[in-house]
């Protein structure tokens, strides 16, 4: 690492006394940025805990043998869960990541301290407003708040405040990159992690503009100023916010994969052009993927649906498949260079699995790819969506992308953020080491239960699959009940992993031993392999090739099996 650091100008554009050199990496840390990284990270964890407690009650309600909540509280806490997890936890964490990537990696100060305050305050006030509106009892509309379901105006106003606050943070990020360029604080092209974060930020701007376009009229409608909102228009525009924000998460997650690969095993991208090109594909081709929430909707025709699903989506899928190769391949090359050069998988078996930064990152990669990627593309196929729309297969998919993928990656990077940015030591490191396995394992089990229950037709967002009080007796196969039980067990395990994460982070941040002035204690000993003298070819990655071939086979089997099941249904057009 030392040689690369020397190539950075030491001073950057930092005002005197507003910068410190990291005791571990020697990277320059802007103290203003550090403060806001900390504040956003703490806010993120608070919202994660709120959403997590809600998640536990939901899992225990949909587990038929438990059926914990009554109908009203089920839908109320489901609304709370979606917004706190998908919006407040993730956006706060992403702003922290953006402030880190721009200032630390480009050796610059944060562009505007006051803008950072404005963003933080708006996001926090907005989030509290939304949560208060939900507990106030007049906003049981779920996260999507599909019109003409109507929430209290405070609900929509809160979401608008969060969105605009986030936009302020994102603009501050672009301004920071601008002053870094202007002040020449770095040479050449920006690092890959900054490039990926920028892709996330660009998509975030488009996403948040969609949010403004849909939420401002909806707010006026809930106040009685506008008479009517077209439900089809609402759905297409809302998903411009709802789906694209997931692509922000994917970009942020992939950037963190690259970051953690470097921090944990010192990996470097095989080919910078390929990795960057894949990020560009995300920016260009994801913007109409909101279409695959509308595949069985009235109002849009087949041509619109097929074009927007395939043209746009599959080039973004290509991008994910590229990262799915380059990330493990870079780990393989780095580990082979450390001397683990025997066999197909010696590099993987000897990876630092006891380092929660590594295990969390690699589990995130596997869960996102094998679980989320394969199901997402298949369920998002225009016709196959007939068998998936609004069933539990959908949350079964997105809990392995945005939770098993993004949230787990964010948890993994936390094991570096706390010692390096908060400069605090973790307690109970043995528990830290098992936390990613507990959370990743639980969420995978839960999503499997959801997916299979959904294949039986079990709907999502549904309080009682016995349909008590309905006009016609209706129910599901016993197999569906077994799957919902598996989902419930997975949800409990995942919640324990989440609770453990929150406790470990709170204990370290507020009560941890300060570690200022000395390098971070490494999570694992530097791996040292058999020291094969032979040179490692940087383009030879046989182990990763086997992994991606297994992936492609699994993908094809699942994909064509779904077409086969579809052909058994009634004919419809």
């Amino acid at each position, binding site marked *: 690492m030392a040689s690369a650091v020397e190539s950075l100008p030491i001073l950057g554009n930092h005002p005197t006394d507003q910068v410190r050199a990291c005791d571990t990496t020697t990277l320059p840390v802007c103290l203003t940025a550090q403060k806001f990284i900390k504040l956003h990270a703490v806010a993120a964890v608070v919202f994660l805990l709120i959403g997590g407690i809600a998640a536990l009650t939901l899992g225990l309600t949909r587990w038929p043998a438990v059926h914990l909540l009554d109908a009203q509280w089920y839908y109320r806490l489901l609304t709370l869960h979606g917004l706190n997890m998908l919006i407040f936890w993730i956006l706060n964490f992403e702003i922290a990541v953006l402030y880190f990537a721009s200032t630390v990696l480009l050796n610059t100060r944060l562009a505007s301290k006051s803008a950072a305050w404005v963003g933080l305050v708006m996001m926090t006030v907005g989030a509290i407003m939304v949560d208060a509106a939900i507990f106030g009892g007049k906003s049981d509309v779920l996260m999507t708040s599909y019109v003409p379901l109507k929430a209290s105006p405070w609900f929509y106003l809160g979401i608008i405040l969060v969105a605009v606050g986030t936009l302020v943070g994102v603009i501050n990020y672009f301004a920071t990159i601008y002053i870094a360029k202007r002040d020449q604080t770095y040479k050449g092209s920006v690092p890959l992690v900054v490039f990926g974060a920028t892709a996330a930020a660009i998509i975030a701007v488009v996403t948040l503009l969609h949010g403004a376009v849909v939420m401002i009229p909806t707010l006026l409608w809930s106040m009685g100023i506008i008479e009517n909102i077209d439900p089809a228009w609402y759905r297409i525009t809302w998903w411009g916010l709802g789906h694209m924000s997931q692509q922000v998460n994917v970009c942020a997650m992939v950037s963190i994969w690259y970051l953690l690969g470097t921090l944990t095993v010192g990996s470097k991208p095989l080919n910078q052009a390929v990795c960057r090109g894949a990020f560009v594909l995300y920016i260009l081709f994801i913007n109409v993927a909101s279409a695959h929430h509308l595949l069985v909707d*009235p109002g849009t025709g087949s041509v619109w649906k097929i074009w927007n699903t395939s043209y746009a989506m*599959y080039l973004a899928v290509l991008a994910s498949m590229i990262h799915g190769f380059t990330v493990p391949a870079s780990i393989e090359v780095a580990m082979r260079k450390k001397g683990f050069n025997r066999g197909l998988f010696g590099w993987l078996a000897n990876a630092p699995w006891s380092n929660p930064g590594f295990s969390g990152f690699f589990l995130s990669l596997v869960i996102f790819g094998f679980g989320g990627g394969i199901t997402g593309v298949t369920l998002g196929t225009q016709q196959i969506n007939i068998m998936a729309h*609004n069933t539990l297969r959908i949350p079964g998919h997105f809990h392995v992308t945005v939770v098993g993928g993004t949230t787990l990656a964010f948890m993994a990077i936390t094991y570096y953020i706390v010692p390096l940015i908060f400069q605090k030591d973790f307690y109970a490191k043995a528990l830290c080491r098992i936390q990613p396995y507990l959370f990743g394992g639980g969420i995978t089990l839960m999503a499997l239960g959801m997916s299979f229950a959904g294949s039986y037709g079990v709907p999502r967002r549904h309080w009682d699959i016995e349909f008590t009080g309905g006009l016609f007796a209706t129910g599901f196969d016993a197999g569906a009940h077994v799957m919902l039980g598996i989902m419930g067990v997975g949800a409990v395990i995942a919640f324990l992993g989440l609770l453990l994460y929150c406790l470990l982070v709170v204990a370290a941040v507020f009560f941890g031993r300060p570690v200022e002035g000395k390098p971070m204690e490494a999570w694992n000993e530097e791996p040292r392999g058999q020291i094969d003298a032979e040179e490692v070819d940087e383009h030879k990655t046989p182990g990763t090739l086997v992994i991606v071939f297994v992936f492609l086979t699994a993908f094809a089997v699942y994909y064509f099996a779904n077409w086969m099941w579809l052909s058994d249904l009634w004919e419809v057009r």
Partner: protein
Amino acid sequence: MSIYNPPEGWLQAPKGPERLWIGLALIWCIVMSLAMPYWHFYGKQNASGESYRVSAVDYGTRVRQFVEANTVGEASGIPIVEIPPGGDGYLLARMWSFYPVIKMKMGQTYRLHISSMDLQHGFSLQPLNMNFQVLPGYDHVLTITPTSTGVFPIICNEFCGIGHHMMTGRIIVE
């Protein structure tokens, strides 16, 4: 290293296994892209989204006329209404029921209209697990051919308020 500025000359074509994988992934993406238009023309299950704007009042009138002309029985206090083969049937979704019970014959093709009187609803046909969105203000037309017989529950799978879980209906196929 992904956290440092890349060395100059980083813009290079991929080599070796990376190049192989990008090629394979691209081919797979193209296959998946072509599968959808293929199925649109040659497959039997498509969601073409045929729909027309309609007011709740007008749609209610059509449902009433359809029920008056074609009722053949009653189940749970709801009329059972048989669609003439090749004809148009009207299903009405509202908080929290589907009205009426629809009767069809296997192998015949029908135009089944669905719309909502109030909120958004989901038309989910069980145990086949066929799902379509129902919006107020839109007459969603499914040109549908039952290929099996029996009594098929319809459930709502779009959240529509506190009684969402009670919203059920029936399609009978002979």
